[in-house]
């Protein structure tokens, strides 16, 4: 590593000199000559943060795949940022959060102290990458003024995909795994309410069900499989800590279940959808009868977006529907940290929380804050009014609460994903044939 570093430095130096010589341009500034972020502030003195943030531009990297979400972000967050705090919001639309992660990693490698990314909408895998690389601003999220509205005792909040949050990221919204069906195609009473019932349903309706292939970047598929693991092993709580023996005991049952399901799947399990988009499209076009969502507003945002028919409805099994939170994080080298902090705090404002769960605003995700901690009556009214406007495409709140479980320890993520490829996707045809024979 050390020698490689020397080599690289030498090559870079040469490259810099050459380019400067050829182009006749001055040698560009490198990270070491950068000035520290302007406008010092003290996180425990919020007024100093707000003062330092004034006039800054906050570069917010977030997934830009939804027109309605983009518009909502520009209007709901961009306008108050500008009008109340004098901050300009530069929303950088990215196709995949991993692109933002790579930007930060490259900046670290290049020694850039004033980075391009100020705030990232981040989750699980990408959070782990940046935390591993020690490139996240530490110890800030619990010190935001609005952090008092967050229930930090909740493991679903202080763990992100099993990885301790430890003040590195601040929650923005909550989500829960649900399924979607088309009320024009089937009645509520026909819905499977457990993984066992799902298998029976798939047998009776061959080719009409499929799930997203688990793997890096496709956590929804992993989540579906984890739910099956919870049900087959008779409980979710035991998976909160990593225990090899437990995995060894139950994993074979999981693969057996999924292989039993396989021949009855769409295209007989020869392939699986890559992501939510593909599954939504299969569902909307009548190739399969179920899709999935993480949104508390259920199918609502997807209907509003035009991705699903208006008769689409969300539902849950009776148990083992994994819920978790979405977060924002600030890179250690962010140029506009004060503005990023103001924005992260703004995201937790009760009125804006109430706005973001509405299906027509694109997200339809749940509250990050604990409603019981809100004391202001007007804010409480706004929150409960929004809750009442989720529409009929949402899963009833009572069903969601009854089925809610937390995610498993982070170590299971890779085990599930790699195991699934090996034992399910690449399983011998013989296993499939046996499944057909049953």
């Amino acid at each position: 590593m050390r020698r490689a570093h020397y080599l690289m430095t030498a090559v870079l130096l040469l490259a810099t000199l050459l380019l400067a010589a050829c182009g006749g341009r001055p040698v560009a500034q490198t990270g070491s000559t950068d000035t520290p972020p302007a406008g010092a502030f003290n996180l425990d003195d919020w007024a100093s943060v707000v003062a330092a943030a004034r006039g800054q531009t906050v570069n917010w990297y977030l997934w830009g795949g939804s027109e309605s979400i983009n518009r909502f972000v520009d209007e709901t967050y961009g306008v108050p940022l500008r009008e109340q705090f004098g901050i300009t919001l530069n929303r950088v639309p990215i196709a995949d959060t991993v692109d933002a992660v790579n930007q930060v990693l490259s900046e670290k490698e290049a020694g850039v102290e004033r980075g391009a990314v100020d705030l990232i909408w981040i989750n699980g895998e990408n959070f782990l990458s940046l935390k591993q690389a020690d490139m996240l601003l530490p110890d800030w999220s619990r010190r935001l003024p609005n952090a008092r509205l967050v229930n930090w005792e909740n493991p679903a909040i202080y763990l992100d995909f099993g990885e301790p949050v430890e003040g590195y990221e601040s929650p923005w919204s909550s989500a829960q795994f649900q399924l979607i069906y088309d009320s024009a195609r089937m009645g509520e009473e026909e819905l499977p309410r457990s993984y066992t019932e799902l298998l029976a349903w798939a047998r009776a309706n061959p080719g009409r069900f499929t799930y997203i292939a688990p793997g890096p970047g496709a956590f929804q598929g992993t989540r579906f499989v984890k739910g099956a693991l919870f049900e087959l092993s008779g409980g979710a709580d035991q998976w909160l800590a990593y225990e090899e023996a437990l995995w060894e005991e139950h994993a074979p049952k999981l693969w057996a279940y999924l292989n039993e399901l396989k021949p009855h799947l769409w295209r007989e399990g020869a392939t699986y959808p890559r992501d939510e988009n593909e599954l939504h499209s299969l569902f909307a076009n009548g190739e399969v009868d179920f899709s999935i969502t993480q949104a508390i507003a259920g199918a609502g945002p997807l209907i509003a977006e035009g991705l699903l028919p208006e008769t689409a409805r969300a539902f849950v099994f009776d148990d083992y529907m994994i819920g978790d939170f979405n977060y924002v994080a600030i890179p250690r080298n962010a140029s506009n940290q004060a503005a990023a902090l103001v924005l992260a705090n703004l995201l937790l404002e009760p009125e804006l929380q109430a706005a973001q769960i509405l299906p027509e605003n694109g997200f339809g995700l749940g509250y990050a804050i604990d409603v019981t901690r809100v004391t202001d009556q007007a804010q409480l009214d706004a929150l409960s009014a929004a809750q009442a406007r989720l529409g009929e495409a949402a899963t009833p709140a009572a069903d969601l609460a009854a089925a809610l479980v937390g995610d498993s320890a982070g170590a299971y993520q890779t085990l599930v994903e790699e195991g699934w490829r090996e034992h399910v996707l690449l399983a011998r045809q013989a296993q499939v044939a046996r499944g057909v024979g049953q």
Partner: protein
Amino acid sequence: MRGANLLVTFRAALLRRATRAVPGALCIALLVGPIVALVVYACSTRWFFPQLLPAEWTLTPLLRQLGSPQTRVALRASLLTAGVTTALALVLGLPAARVLGLWRFRGRTLVLLILFLPTVVPPLAIGMGLNILALRLGLAGSLLGVVLVHLVPVLPYTIFALLGVFARYDEGYELQARTLGAGPLRVWFRVAWPLLGPGLTVAALFAFLVSWSQYLLTLLIGGGRVITLPMLLFAAVAGGNPTSIAGLALLFAAPPVLAIALAARALAAGSAEVGQQY
């Protein structure tokens, strides 16, 4: 009798035409079908199987996209980036291609290997390295940096298109014109351009198209400060909404279509002029 004969001939001709037309029709269907699909999707929503035509037509999403300030800013940034990149690619590519096409010299193979390196190495392998380099050189976050890095995927295609032309170019024409007393400008416009025109047009077109479509490099090097149309388009593809994708794709395609049309005209018209040269 004669009428029947005519009919047979006619039928045979028709059949021949049909058999000849089928591959062509398939080809056209594959080339044009997806574009037709995009146009219809851009003007509709919730268009699902088995509807042959959309039940819900709407121009709202398309118009909203066209009207959004971010789209306008991105369009301008894209035009600027691709335009400057194309010009720079030609300026850098022309002398290199001329030398490589006309002359054999020691080290020529190595030079070709280096120049075509970007086409051989997958973008994944050099994207991050390019970003780190641009950051170290202080080029990140600026249009200049983006243009410079665009040259990496663009130059090979430019040089490639020019090479093919120079390989068969005879400097004798220029020499002859100069001997006959033509100045350099005159030589360029009356001799070199008519001969090189088609190749140069294709080279410029390739340069423009390759630069115009860059997503990852712009995102990385631009550092969020240079937002171009492909960034909006690729983000839309990640969202999977056919209406948004199709709308942005059509907007995205408009300038390239214009460029292709110009190039096609030049290619079609150029032939006559070149013919006169012989």
